[in-house]
Structures are given as structure tokens and as C-alpha cells.
């Protein structure tokens, strides 16, 4: 894709003195990768320090736990992604007993036909593709089934994370996940509810992103 501006800029850069600088050595890996228990604990601790609410539950119990925490909040609507495994599980669970629970809203059409609903929704529940223990962040990998705005627009975001998918560091996640070979449209790290310190450096939570983040870690 040639343009005169591009050519002139590149020509100037190419005409500058060359420096031979090798790629820096990757830092040596952590002496012993922390075990899963340590990773769960570190992730939980850092997320909570950033005001996320974290529940560590045995895998089979995640739905009852989700229902419990939804029942303690007065929510009208919960956006979910119908074409995911958790989506199917949610539908089944709601069919069984929807009492005291928000209505399930499937995000099953383009945002152009869903925007008003989405912006008025109280909460959304998504999977988390993984997490980074040493930074205290979950990894979201939205796709055709689980759209991007679910984890951003509603004031409450609930993320369901497999404990096995917690990496010690971002470098590990990147390497073991083979990210560079296949980057999705959008990949996000989330370390808590939205916040700002722009006013006198006073930390305040709940700005434009979700006001609340709940993470369910499934063991």
C-alpha cells in the first residue's frame, strides 16, 4: 500500500545510521512455577485488593453459587452468551428454578439490534479464557459467541474461570497460549472494576467500565 507520505517517512528512516542491536535475552523463568493452589491464592488476593469479589468453588458448585450471589442483589436482567457451554448450563439452571433471579437475556444478535437492551442490562456473565496470577488479572477472549461488550457495558460483570487456566505470569500465558500465532479480534486483561484517581489521586471505583467484577474460580 504505497503512499508518498509512507515512502518519504520510510526513506528517511532507512537512510539513518544503522545500529546493530540484538534481541534482548528473555529473563530466566521463575525458579519453580508456583503450584495451582499458590496461583489461585495470589490471583484472589490481588483481585480482591482491586475490589473484585472472588469466589473459589468446586466446579460442580458454580451454578448454585452464581444463583446465590445473584439472589443477594436485586437484578432484573443478566446478559449471557447462549452458544457457549456455560450458556447452555445457565439456560438449564434457570429453567429448573428461576425464582429470585434476573431474567436471562441472550446476546444473540448484532449489537445494532441489541444496544438499548445491553445498555439497560444490570449484569452480564462471561467465561474467562484464563488469568495471570502475578498481575491479578483475568484474561477475556471475546469471540463470535461471547461478544466484547458483555464484559464492559453492564455495571456488574461476572466471570467464570477454570483454576487450571491460571498462568503464573503474562509471559507464560502468551507463550503457553500460543497467542502470537493466532490473535483474536480483541483480547483483554481485566484486574478489577473500573477505577480512576484523576481527582486529587483519590481512588474511586466504578467509572465507565463495570462498577463491580465478580470472579468465580472453578477448581
Amino acid at each position, binding site marked *: 500500500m504505497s503512499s508518498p507520505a509512507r515512502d518519504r*517517512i*520510510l526513506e528517511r528512516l532507512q537512510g539513518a545510521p544503522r545500529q546493530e*542491536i540484538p534481541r534482548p535475552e528473555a529473563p530466566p523463568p521463575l525458579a519453580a512455577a508456583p503450584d495451582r493452589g499458590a496461583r489461585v491464592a495470589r490471583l484472589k488476593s490481588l483481585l480482591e485488593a482491586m475490589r473484585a469479589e472472588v469466589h473459589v468453588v468446586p466446579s460442580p458448585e458454580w451454578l448454585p453459587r452464581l444463583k446465590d450471589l445473584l439472589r443477594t442483589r436485586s437484578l432484573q436482567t443478566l446478559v449471557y452468551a447462549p452458544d457457549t457451554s456455560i450458556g447452555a448450563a445457565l439456560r438449564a439452571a434457570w429453567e429448573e428454578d428461576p425464582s429470585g433471579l434476573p431474567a436471562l437475556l441472550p446476546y444473540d444478535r448484532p449489537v445494532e439490534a441489541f*444496544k438499548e437492551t445491553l445498555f439497560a442490562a444490570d449484569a452480564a456473565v462471561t467465561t474467562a479464557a484464563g488469568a495471570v496470577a502475578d498481575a491479578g488479572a483475568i484474561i477475556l477472549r471475546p469471540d463470535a459467541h461471547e461478544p466484547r461488550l458483555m464484559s464492559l457495558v453492564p455495571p456488574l460483570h461476572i466471570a467464570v474461570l477454570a483454576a487450571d487456566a491460571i498462568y503464573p505470569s503474562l509471559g507464560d500465558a502468551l507463550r503457553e497460549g500460543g497467542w502470537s500465532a493466532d490473535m483474536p*479480534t480483541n483480547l483483554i486483561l481485566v484486574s478489577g472494576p473500573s477505577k480512576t*484517581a484523576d481527582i486529587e489521586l483519590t481512588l474511586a471505583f466504578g467509572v465507565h*467500565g463495570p462498577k463491580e467484577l465478580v470472579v468465580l474460580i472453578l477448581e
Partner: protein
Amino acid sequence: MATESFEKRADRALGDAQLRRNFAFAMGNFILKRQAVFSDAAETERLRALGSAIKQRALSRLPELLTQLEAACTRNGIRVHWAETTAVANRVVLEIIQSHAASRVVKGKSMVSEEMHLNAFLASHGIEAIETDLGEFIIQLNGETPSHIIVPAIHKNKAQIAKIFHEKVPGAPYTEEVAELNAIARRTLRRKFYEVGIGLSGVNFAVAETGTLCLVENEGNGRMCTTVPAVHIAVMGLEKVVEKLEDLPPLLRLLTGSATGQLVTTYVNLITSPRREGEKDGPREVHLVILDNGRSRIYQDPQLRRTLQCVRCGTCLNHCPVYTRIGGHAYGFVYPGPIGQILTPQVEGLEKAGELAFASSLCGACEEVCPVKIPITELLRRLRDESYSAAPDGGVPGRGCRQNLVERLAWKGWELLNTHPRLNRLATALLGRAGEYLPPGGPLERWMRYRSQPQFAPRSLHRRIQEEGIPDE
């Protein structure tokens, strides 16, 4: 912008007690936060060395990486535009907006867009640029420019912000409660995110390997601007390209730790393409505008090129004793603080902005903490040399513009005194005897504005050495 001299603006800032209090408080805070998150000195040094190496490596391959970035982005469906000047960049942005018959754009924080004076340009074409970062939102309401790279409204305290909101946001009550002020901003801007069809952002790092734009933020407004509208325009300086995805983890750790003392921002947003087939949201069009604006010229000089390593963390500002006392606006240009002092004279020329390179005691607090180890004091010295250099054209624009007879004679005199021992001893003897009678002009007058008269010793060390019989070989 810079119609008054830097000296006048600095003087005014120094006399503004509220400003000095606001900045002293904020910068002190930032220093502590950074210390807390980089508490292991050895580990921090390793990380900084790595960050420096990654950036220097990327710069060494800048044209190749930009070409690679463009190819990868294009493959991904991101449209790449090149702009040599800010005027061209503004036109590119305008044309994209006009092609969608839009009259508004929601903006995430972008220092490059400040460099472009984009908002004013768009306004002159009937397009409203709506700042959504809280700090930018505050200063936009008040018609001001940012005073810091990371926290644009840091020069304002709660009371000042409360007043601005109450006066400028329709229906907003007067409140100094931070939670309430945030709620007002959230409500006001949520409507804009919903309605506006074009979003604009900066870029923290652009990964050549994968054609990925990496953006970091805490508020969520950046994700809003880059996900809700149908069109996303990203603007970046051409020095922001990095080679590989694996370069991101250390750079992110350095940027975030240095900027706000956090381990990680609330959101790290990696954008690789517009909405793909089957996806339900995200922009249908993503544009990347690569801006030069003097960077390719800076690149020509291997020493000055190191200016381009900057990741815009703002920590040099936080640690600078000058910035802490005069605040960001006194610098008179978009980038304040030490980075502004080395970058601006190179972009704007020494005639217009060269005095910034002299407004430093060379204390080195900035380069001690720079996450990518830019040798800031070395570059300041280089710019000072350029200002007086009699060498023919080349180097920094405006080279030699400060040459003057008075200083040339003064330094020549200093050289003579210090290379002729007998002259030197004569001078110190004279000053020792009659130094207090020096006429109160020029340098002495400036020294004595804040200090009592210097006392020359009656007998110099050289003389005392002779008296005491200390050997000379």
C-alpha cells in the same frame, strides 16, 4: 501557546501557592507509589535494562518494523495511514469522520492527539471531539490543556473540580465528594458512548509481529471508545512500534508501575482487527494513523534517537524538582517535564523551544527512574551544545541560535583563567581581597536575588598549600 517566555510562565507558577500545593502533594504521592511497586532494587534494575534493550532494539529496526506492522495490520483488516505532519494527520482523521457524515467523536486519552491539536482542528470543521477520560473531561470543560502526561487535571484540586462540574455540566450539583463527581462523569459520558458513532484512541504499543494495538487504561472509557462505535481511529507516534508480542509483558509492567504505581492497569486492551465475520460487536472499521512530526528527523542522530525510547509513563515529571514546582502548563508545549525538555526543542526547533533544555539543574532524578533508561541529562547537555554550536547546518533545527558574543567571551575568559595557572592565582588573589566590591550586575545580581553575598576566601587553597608546604609532586 508559547507567546510569553518560559521564564515568565515559570515565575507565575512559582507564585501560585495553590498550584504548588496541588503538585507537591500529587508528585510526592506518585514517588511513594512507584517506590512501593518497584521495591526490589536489583529486580527493578534488571527490568529497566530489559525495557531499554527492547526499545533500543525496536528503534534499531524501525523502518522494517513499521513495514511489518503495516502489513500485519492490513492483513487483519486495519487500515493504515501515514502522516508526516500533524496537519496531515488531522486531515486524515477529519476525512474518515466526514466519510461517515459524523459530527461527533468520543476520545480516549491520547497525547498524540494533543500534539496534533486535534480537538481545535475538528471544532473548526464543525466536529465535536468529546473527551471521555475523566482528567481530560475536566480540563475540556474548563477549556484547558493537560498539565501532566498521565493525569491531565492534576493541577486542580477537589474544590476547583467541583466548581467546574457545577458550572459547566448541566444539572450537576456542587459536590466535592469524589464518588459523586465520578458518578456525574459516568452518567454524562455513558450517553455519549451509546450515541456517538466514531471513537478515537491513542496506542501504547503497536506489535509488528501480529499487527496488534495495545492500549492500557483504568476507567473503561478507552474500551468504550474502541468497541461501541462503528468506527475506531487509533493515532500513534511512529516510535511506538515494538517487535514482538513477548516484548509486551516487561514493557507493560514498566509502564504501569512507573505511571501509576500499579502492577497492572484495570484493562489491558489488545486490538488486532475490526469486527470479524460472525462477531456481534466491535467496530466495523479500524484505522491506524502513524504520525511522524519530526520523529524521523530525530531518528537520524544515534544519540538523540534515544529520545524516541519514551513510553510516555510520566514518571520523569513526577520525580522532577522543577516540574513539581512549576507544573505542566509553564513549559508552554504539549509535553512537559524532562521528556518535554528533550523532545520539544527537537520537534519545534531550538529557536522556539530551546530554552526548555536549560531549565534543569541536571540533578538526574528523572533518568534514575526512567523505565527505559533514556539518558535524559546527556540529551539535555547535547541540546545545550547544539544551541551554541558554530558547526554548519545539520543536527537539531535552530543549531547555534543562542550564539552570542557576551557568553562566548565569558567562557573564553573562563577557559583562559583555568588554563593559565598564574592568571588563575592572580584572579583568586584579587577576588580574595576585593571580591565583596564586585559590581552587582549580571550573574551576581541573579545569584543574590535569593542569597546573601558570596564570601571569597582571603587566601586561596593554592596559596594555603604553598604556606603549608604540601608537596607538588
